């Protein structure tokens, strides 16, 4: 399958931010600079586990010298493998492969005011976003929930760098405070709000935003899709019009198989990026390996890009 170009990085330093969160500072190998990135960007990291390469995405920020990229990883319990690897198998000086920065969570351009809602490790995308806004002299505020001050990563940094703009909510200890979605009621017209945290928190804030009359245009959230596995398996297809049944072997693409029997599916890139080779799916489940379809299109199970994506079991195609 198509390999996107990657960057080799060295782990320059590892800092323990809280009992469960570590910050990793990554640098280019040759003394050059790593690419810059826009607020809200992330990278995928390729972790060489014994069982195969594990791909995990993390928001990037840079509180160190220019040209570095930093990520913060919370040790999850139970760990899906990514955080366990970062916490227990990565040491200073190690060399790893990461993707170029990409941004699926960009700041609004026309916003008059930005409000960030973070819970726990959900603070990470906001670090780069706040840095960008403060450089551009734009108006923003942060609402950040954690268990306690000790478990609140970047507490001191935030207070010092953005005095008066950060509001903290601790759920343990004295002065307990809950981060409530009711805050959404009181933002001026032209505000864009951003949510990052556990699914439950994103759910709660998104539905509150809708209830308070926010257009979908004004609220944003980031959820990292769990990465797909990359082993191609054989699968079957049935063509709706002719009823013909065919097998797609593991080493061949659906596009090739269709074109071979004279079905003129057009194509261009053959790597799942341009969207040209789309075929409609009538029934069946799809493993999507492209980088073109939106999450919504993927989940609909009605469409697939025949150059890279594969069916599970048997698939009925609208052809």
């Amino acid at each position, binding site marked *: 399958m198509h390999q996107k170009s990657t960057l080799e990085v060295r782990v320059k330093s590892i800092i323990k931010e809280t009992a469960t969160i570590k910050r990793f500072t990554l640098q280019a190998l040759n003394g050059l600079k790593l690419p810059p990135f826009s607020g809200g960007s992330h990278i995928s990291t390729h972790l060489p586990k014994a069982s195969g390469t594990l791909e995990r995405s993390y928001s990037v920020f840079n509180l160190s010298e220019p040209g570095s990229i930093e990520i913060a990883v919370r040790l999850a319990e139970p760990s899906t493998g990514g955080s366990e690897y970062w916490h227990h198998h990565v040491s200073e000086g190690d060399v790893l492969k990461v993707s170029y920065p990409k941004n699926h969570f960009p700041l609004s351009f*026309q916003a*008059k*005011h930005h409000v960030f809602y973070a819970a726990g490790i959900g603070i990470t995308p906001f670090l780069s976003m706040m840095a960008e806004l403060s450089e551009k002299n734009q108006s923003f505020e942060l609402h950040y929930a954690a268990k306690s001050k000790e478990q609140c990563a970047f507490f001191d940094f935030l207070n010092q760098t953005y005095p008066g703009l950060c509001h903290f909510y601790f759920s343990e200890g004295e002065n307990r405070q809950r981060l409530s979605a009711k805050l*959404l*009621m*009181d*933002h*001026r*017209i*032209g*505000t864009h*709000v951003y949510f990052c945290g556990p699914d439950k928190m994103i759910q709660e804030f998104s539905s509150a935003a*809708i*209830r*308070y*009359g*926010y*257009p*979908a*245009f*004004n609220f944003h959230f980031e959820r990292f899709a769990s990465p797909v596995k990359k082993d191609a398996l054989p699968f079957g297809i049935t063509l709706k019009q002719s009823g013909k049944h065919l097998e797609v072997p593991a080493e061949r693409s659906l596009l090739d198989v269709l074109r071979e029997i004279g079905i003129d599916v057009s194509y261009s890139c053959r790597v799942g990026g341009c969207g040209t080779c789309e075929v409609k799916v009538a029934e069946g489940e799809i493993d999507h390996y492209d980088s073109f379809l939106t999450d919504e299109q993927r989940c609909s199970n009605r469409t697939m890009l025949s150059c890279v994506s594969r069916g599970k079991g048997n698939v009925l195609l609208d052809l």
Partner: protein
Amino acid sequence: MFSYVEGKRKLLFCTDSEVDRNLYILVRQALDENVTFEFHILEEESEESFVNQWFHKQKMGAYLYISGKEDFVKRIKDVAMMAGFTEHDMQSLINGPVKKKLICCTCHGVNEVSDQTHVVCVHCGQELEVSDHYSRRLDAYLGYVTIK
């Protein structure tokens, strides 16, 4: 025509005339559904600073309807956008004639058109075909030269 948007916490109506009927149905519906609303008839241009303040103190969840003559709608819309409204939290409706600007592709001069398909550029004399290629930046359509 206006459409009533559900799920807003507050509606703002503004018009340039007391006899504007376009907003009546919406106001009725807001009353029926018990949605807070504010209604202003703005007949003087000098009310601009009032409008500006009115818009600036609004919260997310407000929704704006503007009804009136073309110049009025454009003016109020500009004030609203400056305050933070976008096309996602407002609708507008123009009563009466709408002027259309046409940019000459040869000299960039601006011509006023109504519903002709061809005009002669008042700046350079080129014959232009009116297209539906529209620029929001220039608030104008593009006039093309054709070769026959």
